[in-house]
Protein backbone atom coordinates (compact mmCIF):
# COMPACT_ATOMS: atom_id res chain seq x y z
CA UNK A 1 0.00 0.00 0.00
CA UNK A 2 1.19 3.49 -0.76
CA UNK A 3 2.08 5.32 2.44
CA UNK A 4 -0.03 8.25 3.55
CA UNK A 5 1.17 11.74 2.87
CA UNK A 6 4.27 12.83 1.07
CA UNK A 7 7.65 11.21 1.43
CA UNK A 8 9.91 13.96 2.68
CA UNK A 9 13.45 14.22 1.45
CA UNK A 10 15.02 11.16 -0.08
CA UNK A 11 17.42 13.22 -2.16
CA UNK A 12 20.24 10.87 -1.26
CA UNK A 13 18.36 8.04 -2.97
CA UNK A 14 17.73 10.20 -6.04
CA UNK A 15 21.41 11.09 -6.30
CA UNK A 16 22.42 7.47 -5.76
CA UNK A 17 20.16 6.37 -8.63
CA UNK A 18 21.48 8.98 -11.04
CA UNK A 19 25.09 8.28 -10.10
CA UNK A 20 24.51 4.55 -10.56
CA UNK A 21 23.09 5.09 -14.03
CA UNK A 22 25.92 7.42 -14.99
CA UNK A 23 28.65 5.15 -13.66
CA UNK A 24 27.31 1.95 -15.21
CA UNK A 25 26.71 3.53 -18.61
CA UNK A 26 30.11 5.23 -18.59
CA UNK A 27 31.90 2.07 -17.45
CA UNK A 28 30.30 -0.05 -20.14
CA UNK A 29 31.01 2.58 -22.80
CA UNK A 30 34.64 2.77 -21.68
CA UNK A 31 34.90 -1.01 -21.75
CA UNK A 32 33.50 -1.15 -25.30
CA UNK A 33 35.75 1.61 -26.59
CA UNK A 34 38.83 0.06 -25.00
CA UNK A 35 38.08 -3.28 -26.64
CA UNK A 36 37.44 -1.64 -30.00
CA UNK A 37 40.79 0.16 -29.75
CA UNK A 38 42.74 -2.97 -28.89
CA UNK A 39 41.06 -5.02 -31.64
CA UNK A 40 41.63 -2.24 -34.17
CA UNK A 41 45.28 -2.11 -33.21
CA UNK A 42 45.61 -5.85 -33.59
CA UNK A 43 43.92 -5.75 -36.96
CA UNK A 44 46.12 -2.93 -38.19
CA UNK A 45 49.14 -5.01 -37.29
CA UNK A 46 47.82 -7.99 -39.25
CA UNK A 47 46.81 -5.71 -42.13
CA UNK A 48 50.41 -4.59 -42.44
CA UNK A 49 51.37 -8.16 -43.08
CA UNK A 50 48.61 -9.10 -45.49
CA UNK A 51 46.34 -6.69 -47.30
CA UNK A 52 42.79 -7.81 -46.56
CA UNK A 53 39.58 -5.98 -47.28
CA UNK A 54 37.67 -4.97 -44.20
CA UNK A 55 34.05 -3.92 -44.39
CA UNK A 56 33.16 -0.74 -42.60
CA UNK A 57 30.03 -0.13 -40.64
Amino acid sequence: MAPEGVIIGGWSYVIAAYVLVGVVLAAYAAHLIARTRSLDARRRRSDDRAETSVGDS
Partner: protein
Amino acid sequence: MKKMHAFGLVGLALIIVGSIYGLTASPPERHMGDVSRILYVHVPTAWNCLLIYLFAFGFAIASLWTGKQRWDIATTAAIETGVVLNILLLGTGMIFAKPTWGIWWDWDVRLTTSLIALIFYAAILALRTFIDDPNRRATLTAVTCIISFVDVPLIYFGVRWWRSLHQIQSSPETMAETMVFPMRVNAFAVLFISIWFMLLRARIERSKLESDEVVEPPVRRAMATA
Protein backbone atom coordinates in the same frame (compact mmCIF):
# COMPACT_ATOMS: atom_id res chain seq x y z
CA MET B 1 32.53 4.71 -37.76
CA LYS B 2 31.83 8.39 -37.16
CA LYS B 3 28.12 7.84 -37.73
CA MET B 4 28.12 5.26 -34.97
CA HIS B 5 29.42 7.69 -32.34
CA ALA B 6 26.73 10.19 -33.31
CA PHE B 7 24.23 7.93 -31.55
CA GLY B 8 26.30 8.08 -28.40
CA LEU B 9 26.65 11.85 -28.52
CA VAL B 10 22.95 12.46 -29.14
CA GLY B 11 22.13 10.05 -26.33
CA LEU B 12 24.52 11.82 -23.98
CA ALA B 13 23.09 15.24 -24.84
CA LEU B 14 19.52 14.03 -24.35
CA ILE B 15 20.22 12.32 -21.04
CA ILE B 16 21.88 15.50 -19.72
CA VAL B 17 18.89 17.61 -20.76
CA GLY B 18 16.36 15.10 -19.48
CA SER B 19 18.10 14.55 -16.17
CA ILE B 20 18.66 18.23 -15.44
CA TYR B 21 15.02 18.91 -16.20
CA GLY B 22 13.98 15.94 -14.12
CA LEU B 23 16.15 16.96 -11.16
CA THR B 24 15.34 20.68 -11.17
CA ALA B 25 12.47 21.95 -13.29
CA SER B 26 10.05 19.10 -12.67
CA PRO B 27 8.02 19.50 -9.46
CA PRO B 28 8.02 16.77 -6.80
CA GLU B 29 5.23 14.25 -7.14
CA ARG B 30 2.17 14.50 -4.91
CA HIS B 31 2.80 11.38 -2.79
CA MET B 32 6.33 10.29 -3.47
CA GLY B 33 7.92 13.71 -3.32
CA ASP B 34 11.42 14.11 -4.66
CA VAL B 35 11.96 10.35 -4.70
CA SER B 36 9.78 10.23 -7.81
CA ARG B 37 12.71 11.71 -9.72
CA ILE B 38 14.30 8.27 -9.67
CA LEU B 39 11.56 7.21 -12.05
CA TYR B 40 12.96 9.49 -14.75
CA VAL B 41 15.91 7.13 -15.10
CA HIS B 42 14.29 3.94 -13.86
CA VAL B 43 11.32 3.84 -16.21
CA PRO B 44 13.25 4.70 -19.40
CA THR B 45 15.79 1.92 -18.71
CA ALA B 46 12.94 -0.52 -18.12
CA TRP B 47 11.23 0.38 -21.40
CA ASN B 48 14.45 0.19 -23.35
CA CYS B 49 15.56 -3.02 -21.71
CA LEU B 50 12.39 -4.71 -22.88
CA LEU B 51 12.75 -3.13 -26.32
CA ILE B 52 16.35 -4.34 -26.68
CA TYR B 53 15.34 -7.85 -25.61
CA LEU B 54 12.64 -7.64 -28.27
CA PHE B 55 15.34 -6.73 -30.79
CA ALA B 56 17.42 -9.69 -29.61
CA PHE B 57 14.40 -11.94 -30.09
CA GLY B 58 13.94 -10.68 -33.65
CA PHE B 59 17.65 -11.03 -34.45
CA ALA B 60 17.65 -14.54 -32.98
CA ILE B 61 14.79 -15.60 -35.24
CA ALA B 62 16.63 -14.14 -38.23
CA SER B 63 19.81 -15.91 -37.15
CA LEU B 64 18.08 -19.26 -36.87
CA TRP B 65 16.22 -18.73 -40.13
CA THR B 66 19.12 -17.63 -42.32
CA GLY B 67 22.14 -19.05 -40.52
CA LYS B 68 23.98 -15.84 -41.39
CA GLN B 69 26.70 -14.76 -38.99
CA ARG B 70 25.70 -11.12 -38.98
CA TRP B 71 22.42 -11.94 -37.23
CA ASP B 72 24.30 -13.86 -34.58
CA ILE B 73 26.52 -10.84 -34.06
CA ALA B 74 23.43 -8.63 -33.78
CA THR B 75 21.80 -11.03 -31.31
CA THR B 76 24.86 -11.09 -29.08
CA ALA B 77 25.21 -7.31 -29.16
CA ALA B 78 21.55 -6.88 -28.25
CA ILE B 79 21.67 -9.43 -25.43
CA GLU B 80 24.73 -7.83 -23.86
CA THR B 81 23.27 -4.32 -24.11
CA GLY B 82 20.02 -5.66 -22.68
CA VAL B 83 21.89 -7.14 -19.73
CA VAL B 84 23.54 -3.78 -18.98
CA LEU B 85 20.16 -2.03 -19.01
CA ASN B 86 18.71 -4.86 -16.95
CA ILE B 87 21.34 -4.33 -14.25
CA LEU B 88 20.55 -0.61 -14.24
CA LEU B 89 16.85 -1.30 -14.08
CA LEU B 90 17.29 -3.55 -11.06
CA GLY B 91 19.67 -1.13 -9.36
CA THR B 92 17.46 1.90 -9.76
CA GLY B 93 14.42 -0.21 -8.91
CA MET B 94 15.95 -1.20 -5.58
CA ILE B 95 16.98 2.36 -4.82
CA PHE B 96 13.42 3.42 -5.54
CA ALA B 97 12.00 0.63 -3.39
CA LYS B 98 13.86 1.62 -0.22
CA PRO B 99 12.31 5.07 0.41
CA THR B 100 8.87 4.18 -0.99
CA TRP B 101 8.29 0.69 0.45
CA GLY B 102 10.90 0.88 3.19
CA ILE B 103 12.81 -2.17 1.95
CA TRP B 104 15.53 -2.70 -0.64
CA TRP B 105 13.97 -5.73 -2.19
CA ASP B 106 10.37 -6.73 -2.54
CA TRP B 107 9.09 -9.66 -4.55
CA ASP B 108 7.22 -7.20 -6.72
CA VAL B 109 6.10 -8.51 -10.10
CA ARG B 110 8.28 -6.31 -12.23
CA LEU B 111 11.37 -6.51 -10.04
CA THR B 112 11.13 -10.30 -9.79
CA THR B 113 10.55 -10.71 -13.51
CA SER B 114 13.48 -8.51 -14.41
CA LEU B 115 15.77 -10.32 -11.98
CA ILE B 116 14.92 -13.66 -13.58
CA ALA B 117 15.30 -12.16 -17.05
CA LEU B 118 18.76 -10.95 -16.06
CA ILE B 119 19.76 -14.46 -14.99
CA PHE B 120 18.36 -15.82 -18.26
CA TYR B 121 20.27 -13.53 -20.53
CA ALA B 122 23.46 -13.61 -18.49
CA ALA B 123 23.28 -17.41 -18.72
CA ILE B 124 23.10 -17.15 -22.51
CA LEU B 125 26.26 -15.04 -22.52
CA ALA B 126 27.89 -17.63 -20.26
CA LEU B 127 26.76 -20.44 -22.57
CA ARG B 128 28.40 -18.73 -25.54
CA THR B 129 31.82 -18.85 -23.92
CA PHE B 130 31.61 -22.64 -23.70
CA ILE B 131 31.05 -23.27 -27.42
CA ASP B 132 33.96 -23.10 -29.83
CA ASP B 133 32.23 -23.85 -33.12
CA PRO B 134 30.77 -20.55 -34.40
CA ASN B 135 27.84 -22.21 -36.18
CA ARG B 136 26.78 -24.15 -33.14
CA ARG B 137 27.28 -21.10 -30.94
CA ALA B 138 25.01 -19.07 -33.18
CA THR B 139 22.30 -21.74 -33.20
CA LEU B 140 22.28 -22.27 -29.45
CA THR B 141 22.36 -18.54 -28.71
CA ALA B 142 19.35 -18.06 -30.96
CA VAL B 143 17.40 -20.98 -29.49
CA THR B 144 17.98 -19.95 -25.88
CA CYS B 145 17.24 -16.33 -26.70
CA ILE B 146 13.90 -17.20 -28.30
CA ILE B 147 12.84 -19.39 -25.39
CA SER B 148 13.88 -16.78 -22.83
CA PHE B 149 11.92 -14.04 -24.51
CA VAL B 150 8.80 -16.18 -24.79
CA ASP B 151 9.19 -17.10 -21.13
CA VAL B 152 9.42 -13.52 -19.83
CA PRO B 153 5.64 -12.87 -20.08
CA LEU B 154 4.99 -16.27 -18.51
CA ILE B 155 7.15 -15.32 -15.55
CA TYR B 156 5.40 -11.99 -15.35
CA PHE B 157 1.95 -13.55 -15.13
CA GLY B 158 3.16 -16.35 -12.91
CA VAL B 159 4.63 -13.91 -10.41
CA ARG B 160 1.59 -11.65 -10.66
CA TRP B 161 -0.80 -14.46 -9.77
CA TRP B 162 1.54 -15.63 -7.05
CA ARG B 163 1.72 -12.14 -5.52
CA SER B 164 -1.92 -11.29 -6.06
CA LEU B 165 -2.85 -13.04 -2.82
CA HIS B 166 -0.56 -10.81 -0.78
CA GLN B 167 -0.99 -7.30 -2.01
CA ILE B 168 -2.56 -5.14 -4.63
CA GLN B 169 -0.36 -4.12 -7.52
CA SER B 170 0.82 -0.58 -7.20
CA SER B 171 0.27 1.09 -10.52
CA PRO B 172 1.49 4.56 -11.41
CA GLU B 173 -1.24 7.17 -11.50
CA THR B 174 -1.76 9.38 -14.49
CA MET B 175 1.29 11.53 -14.76
CA ALA B 176 1.44 15.28 -14.99
CA GLU B 177 2.83 16.78 -18.18
CA THR B 178 5.90 17.99 -16.31
CA MET B 179 6.68 14.37 -15.42
CA VAL B 180 6.06 13.04 -18.89
CA PHE B 181 8.60 15.36 -20.53
CA PRO B 182 11.79 14.25 -18.70
CA MET B 183 10.67 10.65 -18.91
CA ARG B 184 10.27 10.85 -22.68
CA VAL B 185 13.55 12.68 -23.19
CA ASN B 186 15.41 10.12 -21.11
CA ALA B 187 13.68 7.26 -22.89
CA PHE B 188 15.06 8.51 -26.19
CA ALA B 189 18.42 9.18 -24.56
CA VAL B 190 18.71 5.60 -23.30
CA LEU B 191 17.51 4.32 -26.67
CA PHE B 192 20.22 6.22 -28.52
CA ILE B 193 22.87 5.14 -26.05
CA SER B 194 21.69 1.52 -26.36
CA ILE B 195 21.89 1.65 -30.14
CA TRP B 196 25.39 3.05 -29.81
CA PHE B 197 26.32 0.21 -27.44
CA MET B 198 24.90 -2.38 -29.81
CA LEU B 199 26.77 -0.97 -32.80
CA LEU B 200 30.04 -0.87 -30.86
CA ARG B 201 29.52 -4.35 -29.45
CA ALA B 202 28.64 -5.73 -32.89
CA ARG B 203 31.77 -4.18 -34.34
CA ILE B 204 33.88 -5.80 -31.64
CA GLU B 205 32.26 -9.18 -32.19
CA ARG B 206 32.78 -8.90 -35.93
CA SER B 207 36.40 -7.88 -35.82
CA LYS B 208 37.04 -10.56 -33.21
CA LEU B 209 35.66 -13.19 -35.58
CA GLU B 210 37.53 -11.74 -38.52
CA SER B 211 40.86 -11.60 -36.78
CA ASP B 212 40.42 -15.05 -35.28
CA GLU B 213 39.40 -16.77 -38.43
CA VAL B 214 40.43 -17.09 -42.01
CA VAL B 215 37.26 -16.08 -43.79
CA GLU B 216 38.42 -16.81 -47.30
CA PRO B 217 39.03 -20.42 -48.33
CA PRO B 218 42.59 -21.41 -49.12
CA VAL B 219 43.91 -20.85 -52.62
CA ARG B 220 42.74 -23.48 -55.06
CA ARG B 221 45.43 -26.05 -55.72
CA ALA B 222 46.30 -27.41 -59.11
CA MET B 223 44.80 -30.85 -59.68
CA ALA B 224 46.87 -33.60 -61.18
CA THR B 225 45.12 -35.16 -64.18
CA ALA B 226 44.41 -38.81 -64.64
